[in-house]
């Protein structure tokens, strides 16, 4: 299965947002907040 180039852009933007949200949650977990 292959992915069209325009779809890759959307997937990567979603990955960045997901990473930032996950990083914030993980930091809260570390700090016990």
């Amino acid at each position, binding site marked *: 299965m*292959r992915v069209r*180039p*325009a779809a*890759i852009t959307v997937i990567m933007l979603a990955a*960045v947002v997901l*990473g930032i949200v996950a*990083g914030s949650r993980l930091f809260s977990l*570390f*700090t016990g907040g």
Partner: protein
Amino acid sequence: MTAASRQDPLVSDVAKLAVGIAGLALCLTLVFLGMRAVMDVGGACADGGPYVSAQRCPQGSTVALLGGMFGLFLFGGIAMWYGARIGGIWSAVPLLAWSGLFLSLGGNFLDYGVLNTPEGEGIIWGWAICGVMFMVMGGAPLIGGLSVFGAAPLRRSLGGTAAAGPGPGATGVRTVVLGPTVGGDGIGAFRAASATAAAASAPAPAPEPARRAELAAISADMGAAVTQALHESAAPDVDATPADNAFDEGTQALLDRLERLADLRDRGLLAADEYETAKETIVRELEARQ
């Protein structure tokens, strides 16, 4: 909406690149927040060892900073590897993490050292200077990279080929390819295909001068090669000996053009449909020669 073509990347590669990119964003966030936590307590802290530290590190900041920094290497490697497999602009996208790291940390320095200094303090020059240096370290490669790569590969990668509509560059290649006045049925067919594509894409703004010049050079090369090939097939070389089993010059030139077209497509300078149109013409000429 058009279906994905054979040149489009595999889902598995895209998924692994997404893991790398998400991991990079996660680690950057950890480092960014960990640094702010340490700067909240004055910018320096210590934990462990036989001594009692005057300023202990905020809970979790050590794990966040160390994990984030090492994670950047891990996920950076994953993103670079699978970005290179996908090719085009995606092989360079993970490098944005460098700018992301230094710009975000530089922002922290400027925030704490200049904009929101602790009460009763003026500008903290140590942090302000670090902030400016980090901004330069993050911003200079970003600006330099964008100027080197230019907008064309980015536009092609972001906009796709047919579904997103033709960009100025896409129209440019069709316009330029129509230019050479060479004869032959193959060229006639290529012209017809190009004219159809150009008609479908009009109206569109003119291509940028640099790209137009590059495409004109490619087009001239292709036109010369096809003309040469047609000329040679019309008047075969009577002096050729049976020992000359390798491709003749015209065929070799056509094969070279094919390689160059594939290279241009891989670099994102040619869209998939432009590549296919040009390739079909060359393949037709090769078949005619056989």
